[in-house]
Each structure stands twice: as C-alpha cells, then as structure tokens.
C-alpha cells in the first residue's frame, strides 16, 4: 500500500541530509514498527508521510498515488497521532472531538456518530464531558488516539503513543491498535519500547542516521540478532543496540 522510493531529505540545501535513500514497502493492513534512536530520522519520515514536510515527486506512493500531489494526499485518509497531548486541555473531551472532527470536514449529520465511535474505540464514552486537562495520563493518551480516529483513517501514524502511562492503559491502547489493524487500518508505529513493537508489529524497520539499517518480519530480524548477554537469547533490543551502536544519544 505504501511505497517509499529513494527518499532523500535535508532541511536546507546546505544542511546534512536527515534522510538518505529510504526504501520501504509497507503492505496494506500492516502493523509496521519503525525503530531508531533519537535523531535517527523517524520523526522526519513520519512528518513526510503526514504531509507536514512536502516530499519530492516520485518518492512516496500510497495505493500507487504520488503523495507529492495535494489531491492524492487528501484522498489517502491518513491520520497522525503526535507524541504530545495534541489537543486543548481547557476543553472537554467532547469539545475536543467536535473541534477536530469539524476541521476535518466531518458533516454535521455524522458528527455525533463519529464522536461516539472514536470515544467507544478508546473507552472514553463515560468521560465525554470531562475537561481534558483533568484526565489522567492514560485517558489523555486515549483522547490523543481518539482524535486520530475521527476521520476513520486508512493509514494511522502513531508517534510513541504509550509514553508515560500505566500498564492497564498501555495494554488497552495496544489492544485498540491491534483491533484497528484487524479492521483494515494500516498502522505505522514508532516507539522506544522494544517489547511493545515485538508484541504488536508484524513488520519492523530499524533506522539510524537517516538510513534504514534492517527491515523485515520479527522472525527475520531475530534471526540475525546477537544474544542478549543477560537473557541469553536473541531479542529485538539486542539487534537494535548492535545496529545503532551502544553509545548514548542526545
């Protein structure tokens, strides 16, 4: 479904490239994990996929349509869920959902149904009239996700959606994402939690310094992973550390 071909990007002609020759094929309905240390280029890649940074022609295709064209992009029905709580804390859950549905052009007749659908998928039905700022960290994460579901996306871009929440909320969010995948949504998922990616994703890419270092299924990646010295088994984390070197990153 998503095809990225030789994608190069730098923020200015004089700056060093942030993405270098990215090649990726992400099949439809895939739960695709994108791993990389800080500064690897994940956020830039997500920004290009989300349309925040214009991509050069012939580099990014969704269902065969070139995403450098605005009309194709709006037809792609994608949704970005940023890592931050990207909503309005003084507004209620319902007001937030109403606003984000409104700016995405959801017709008035469908508004109520969409809000209840997104709230239902994320377990927020009982909190619609609560102020977003008063919600717990887990509920805020769920609201962040619910907003991303309002346009019934075919492609969902999740940037670290489980940072800083309790295990129950984390489990709920992962289950929701799994369900979305089963219902036909393609998900691109970035996280620093290797276990989450192992548990959730059927396709994984590890990137660093703007390049894709490895890509494949979990089984394929684990086959070339060195043994974890503590657990004496091959893990995604040991492969990640091996590929991206063990030095500390900013």
């Amino acid at each position: 479904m998503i095809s990225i071909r030789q994608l190069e990007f730098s923020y200015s002609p004089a700056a060093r490239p942030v993405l270098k020759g990215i090649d990726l094929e992400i099949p439809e309905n895939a739960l695709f994990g994108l791993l990389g240390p800080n500064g690897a280029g994940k956020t830039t890649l997500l920004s290009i996929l989300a349309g925040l940074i214009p991509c050069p022609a012939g580099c990014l295709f969704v269902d065969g349509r070139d995403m450098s064209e605005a009309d194709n992009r709006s037809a792609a029905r994608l949704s970005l869920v940023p890592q931050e709580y990207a909503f309005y804390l003084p507004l209620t859950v319902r007001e937030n959902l109403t606003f984000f549905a409104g700016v995405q052009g959801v017709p008035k007749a469908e508004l109520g149904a969409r809000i209840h659908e997104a709230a239902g998928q994320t377990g927020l039905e009982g909190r619609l009239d609560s102020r977003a700022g008063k919600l717990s960290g887990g509920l805020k994460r769920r609201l962040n996700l619910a907003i991303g579901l309002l346009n019934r996306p075919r492609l969902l871009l999740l940037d670290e959606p489980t940072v800083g929440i309790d295990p129950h909320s984390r489990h709920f969010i992962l289950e929701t994402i799994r369900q979305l995948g089963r219902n036909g949504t393609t998900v691109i998922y970035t996280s620093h939690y290797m276990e989450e990616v192992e548990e959730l994703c059927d396709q994984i890419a590890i990137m660093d310094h703007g390049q894709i270092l490895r890509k494949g299924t979990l089984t394929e990646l684990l086959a070339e992973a060195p043994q974890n010295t503590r657990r004496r088994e091959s893990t995604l984390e040991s492969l990640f550390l091996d590929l991206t070197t063990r030095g500390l990153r900013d």
Partner: protein
Amino acid sequence: MGVMKALIRKELLLLLRDPHGLLLLFVMPAVFVLIMTFALQNQYAMSSDVHLDFYLLSEHDSGLSRAFARDLANTSPLNRVPTEAGWEEMQALAQADEVKFLVRIKPGFDDLLIQRQPAVEILFAPGTSPVFASVAEGRVMELLNRLYLRYRLASMPGVQSSLEAQGEDLLETRSLYDDSGAMPSSVQQNVPAWLLFAMFFIAVPLSTTLINERQQGTLLRLRSMGIGPVKLLAGKVVPYFVVNLVQVVVLFLIGLYLIPLLGGDKLTLGAHPEGLILVSVAASLAAVSYALLVAQITSTIEQATIVSGVFNIIMAALGGVMVPSFLMPETMQQIGSFSPMAWGLNGFFDILLRNGTVTDTLPEVGALLGFAALMLCLTVWRYRRRAAEHG
C-alpha cells in the same frame, strides 16, 4: 461544520475558559477607564466643579486692596477659603494640601501697584499642578492689571464705566466641537485611550494559545489535517477581531452610561459615529496582526507575555494613552506619532473630539491597515520559516 466555524468556536471557548485573559481584556480596561476618567476629570473640564482653593492674607488696608481681595474671591475658578490663620500657619496648611495656593497683599499695596512693583505674593502648595498654577497666576495678574488701569483712568470721564465691565462680557467663547455646545472632557480622552490599550493586549491570550498549540503538537496535528497557514491564521484573526469589537462596545457603553451614572461626564460620540466603527475595525486588525507576530517571534508563553507587555506599554506611553499627547513636549509628540496606538487614538479623536467625518479618519485608518498588512506579512513569513525548520 465548516473549518472556519470550528476554528473560531474553539478559540472563543478557549478564551471563555481563561479567566486571566478575560480579566486582562475586559476588567482591566474598564477599571482603567473609570479610574482615569474621574482622576483626570478636573484636568480637562474647567467647569464650575473645579475650585482652586486659596487663603488670602492682606497686610495693607485700602480701597484698592479691598477691591482686589473682593474681586479675587469672585473670580472663577478661584475660591477664597476664609481663615484667621497667620502667614506662617497658612504656609503649614498649604503644605498639608488644605489649599492650592496662598495670596499675600503686601504692605504698601497701592504704591507698589502704581509703581508697577510686585504688590502681591503667591505661594503655591507643593502638589498644585502647573496647569492650575498658571490659571491662578493668570487670574491674579489680570485682576492687578485691571485695578491698575482703573486707578490710572479713574479721573477720565466716560471711561470708568467701561472698565467696570467683566472680562467675560468682552470675550465671546465658542467651541469648534459641535453646535450643541458640548465640550470635550476626560471621558472623551480616556475611553478610546484605554480601549486601544486593551485591544492591543489581546497579544497575551492569542500568543498563549498559539504557543501552547505549537508546544503541544496541536499545530502539527492541525497541519497534518490539511489546515494551511492562511486558515490557521484566519482562525485566530476572526475570533480575536470579534473580541476586539466586543471590547469597543463594552467600553463605549461604560462611557455612555456607567460613567454618567457615577457622576462623571457622558461620552459624546460626535456627529459622525460611523467613523468610530471604521477606526475600531482598523485598530482591531492592527492589534490582531501584531499579536500574531508576537506569537511567531517568541518561543515560550513567558517570552510572549513579556514582549507584548513591554511593547504595549511603550506604544501606550508614546501614543498618548497614559499621558495625553498635548501634555508632551514637541519632540515626544513627534516620537509618539510612530505608535500605532497614537494612530488609533487620533482616529477616535477625529470623531470624538474634533467632530470630524469618516473622511477625516482615513489617514489614521490607512496607517493602521498598513501596519496590519506589514505585521501579517511578517507573521506568514516567520510561520513558514518555522514550519520549514521544524517540520
């Protein structure tokens, strides 16, 4: 639901949930208008309400000195306060702000007056404003000159009766303000002045919202939903434009109804109040565009609050909001003429004070719209640059 409708509704909801913002935009200017209107009322209106109290000590007894004392007591707005106190005690009372000034008729008053020597001494209390001091000085001097002439010409038949005429009878006073005889007052200065101050203070809530959106990734999310810079900025301009117009209505209502109710002068709107709408619209566009630029050139809410606060106060101080321009020296008035608040204030004064027409406001309206266009261009340029730098 339209995109613009959603953006406007969100912005107004955020403002309604921000008590500090409401305090800043509505309560602060209302309080300023009330305080400053009453505080400066006497500075503008030399009406019967104004009394310049003084003590008089006569150290000479003659027909001329008695005539001087009597006429001085009857001279408006001077008000002789009777006292038995001596000169030293009078000075102590003036120090304590009991009266504005002291008048002493010197011994040998008649001779001194005829020889054109200082026959009267005036001592001003420390807190007497220079305006009041000059009024008192002028009245005393006028009276002394009249007495001198009366004395000199007393022997000439047919002249004396004309000298008995009061100064007011010899002078016809008219105002260019309007035909009703209404005079500009403190409320005419303070309502538009503090209104403009408040309008430009929308920079604080507007930049707070915009910076929060940037920091929390909401702006990123909106952009990923296809909301471009024009829609985003229009989504700020329109609601805050509406807020500015609500400020205009609220402050003008205060001037029209609340201040007279509390005993102050009523705001009069001039013969062409439609000009006020034009100036309000132009001032609002200038204020909103300025606020957008503040949000774009600052990174944190603290920075935005400081930058907008400092610039607003400088613009207000130079623009004649805090101190009326006519009280400033020429150089300060020239510097102040670069302040957008001065343009707005002059536009309002064209209608409220000078009884002008819509055409009279066009130079100020043009300057405000030019300022708004410049601010908007800089905002869009900065927004695009920031977006390109940070994705």
